[in-house]
């Protein structure tokens, strides 16, 4: 078997693939965080809970209503997005005139409530969710075996990330969003319904998290705490990338996933901490993040 630095190639590619998949989740989640942060100036601590909700809505849709994966992939982000909008309208909105830290604390509290409720009713052990039939099995690429579902996750995440980027960069509503990030007061004075834009943005960010959750459901188990540990890593990803650019968030997400995968091959003990170590290094060298501007 071919080896590189004493590591069988198959192992290396296997871990790189896992890294790429984790990177896909980091990318989609940090993209959602970055969009919400851009307009609301609030770090959405509930992002992990919304990711978890996405997976759970998919699971519930299957078990209670018999709706399959493909339907869930559409329905779940819509449901979670609507829930997010309701949350923004009824609670988060009241805090905009105070310090942004209160927004962080509110979303933290909501995350605890949601995760606690699901732990209470479904237990912490998690529910299995099977891979949709069309994506079962795998493809032999010659140098490695590629499970079809994993390839789909990477492709779907990339498409969603790039689609989001196109919407923000190329459409009218994207232009409003970018203008709102630059100068909310001025945008409002031009007659743009800013409160509505904020609600939609928050809903869209939540929907992105839910989409990632549905993608994750067949890979990881659907469990109430699946989001809370992931979200801290995503925070580190966001600090590393900086929140100045959409493409930056996507690139950093995938890149760090790969780095994490590599560390699993070469130095497994560090695989849990490598992203945090990189965060420390970035803070020492370029505190505003790789793609960031000082906020």
């Amino acid at each position, binding site marked *: 078997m071919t080896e590189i630095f004493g590591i069988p190639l198959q192992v290396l590619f296997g871990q790189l693939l896992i890294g790429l998949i984790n990177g896909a989740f980091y990318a989609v989640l940090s993209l959602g965080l970055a969009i919400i942060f851009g307009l609301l100036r609030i770090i959405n601590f509930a992002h992990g809970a919304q990711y978890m909700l996405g997976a759970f809505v998919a699971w519930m849709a299957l078990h209670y209503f018999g709706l399959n994966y493909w339907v869930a992939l559409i329905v779940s982000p819509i449901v979670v997005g609507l829930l997010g909008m309701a949350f923004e309208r009824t609670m988060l909105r009241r805090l905009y005139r105070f310090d942004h830290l209160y927004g962080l604390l509110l979303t933290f509290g909501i995350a605890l409530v949601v995760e*606690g409720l699901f732990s209470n009713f479904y237990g912490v052990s998690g529910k299995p969710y099977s891979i949709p039939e069309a994506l079962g099995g795998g493809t032999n690429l010659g140098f490695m075996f590629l499970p079809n579902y994993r390839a789909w996750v990477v492709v779907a995440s990339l498409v969603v990330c790039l689609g989001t980027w196109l919407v923000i960069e190329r459409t009218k509503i994207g232009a409003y969003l970018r203008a709102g990030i630059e100068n909310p007061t001025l945008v409002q004075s031009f007659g743009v319904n800013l409160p509505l834009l904020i609600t939609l943005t928050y809903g869209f960010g939540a929907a992105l998290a839910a989409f990632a959750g549905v993608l994750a459901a067949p890979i990881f188990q659907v469990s109430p705490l699946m989001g809370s540990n992931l979200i*801290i*890593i995503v925070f580190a990803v966001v600090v590393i990338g900086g929140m100045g650019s959409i493409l930056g968030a996507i690139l950093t997400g995938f890149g760090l996933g790969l780095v994490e995968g590599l560390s699993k091959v070469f130095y497994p003990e560090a695989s849990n901490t490598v992203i945090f170590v990189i*965060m420390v290094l970035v803070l020492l060298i370029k505190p505003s993040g790789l793609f960031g501007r000082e906020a």
Partner: protein
Amino acid sequence: MDSLHRYRVPLALLVIALALGAPFVLYPVFLMKLLCFALFASAFNLLLGYVGLLSFGHAAFLGTAGYVTGYLVKDAGLPMVPGLLAGTAAAALLGYVFGSLAIRRRGIYFAMITLALAQMVYFVCLQVPQTGGEDGLQAVPRGRLFGVLDLTNNITMYYVVLAIFLFGSFVIYRTIHSPFGQVLKAIRENEQRAVSLGYEVDRYKLLAFVLSAALSGLAGATKALVLQLASLTDVDWHTSGEVVLMTLLGGMGTVAGPFVGAALVVTMQDYLADIGAFVTVIIGGVFVVCVLVFRRGLVGELARALKLKT
């Protein structure tokens, strides 16, 4: 001088008198746990309430100090006092590292960085053999204070913990009411103006951070001796969230607030321990209500209602 401040000596004496009698009425271990968390929350409040820095990683200091003290006392056979001091020093050192990194960014980033660093500490604690991994350090001996006082007696231990708590609170009180504390408040109110007045803001922030970390460490080291246990729960991010809640619920930026908040949260957890995961829901719910309805916290709102200045 404002009215609350005028009564601070009799008030403090009243509280101390109550604290001295408390272990004969309530379960001493519960009271000790409460004092440890009250000190932890007060140390946290020094940072959030007086410098305006929201750290989401304070569990790292509580937990690390607990592990260091637990390891030194249990496995290295050190007496209690050096063990406590070493734990506190370890937390201070960690605070210096966290602080130097986190003050490079402001506001929300500061919170995320401290959270991420604390999570790194969590993973390190999970992996290094000295912490006992998932099991934690169990049966940490309390030993004898200065080789004389038998600390296995809960009442004796309680008075030692009370002394530690009073010492920690006194340090915090003196810090807040010193010229240094005034500069911290100035940074909280208007950082740019503090800079333009010639204060080296980053050094003040860092010093406050280290002080807060050290006192959190003191609380964690004491807690490890009280419960004779150092575990992963103490370095978990939920604990970082709980200390935020204690401070917020009691009233950030008030001297008594963190104590009240810690008392409420610890009591709540103690009484609700049976209902399992639902505790998280209640804690989260309290968080939401606090943030939406009374941002000043119980003590802050009370002081406002009585038109007192805290």
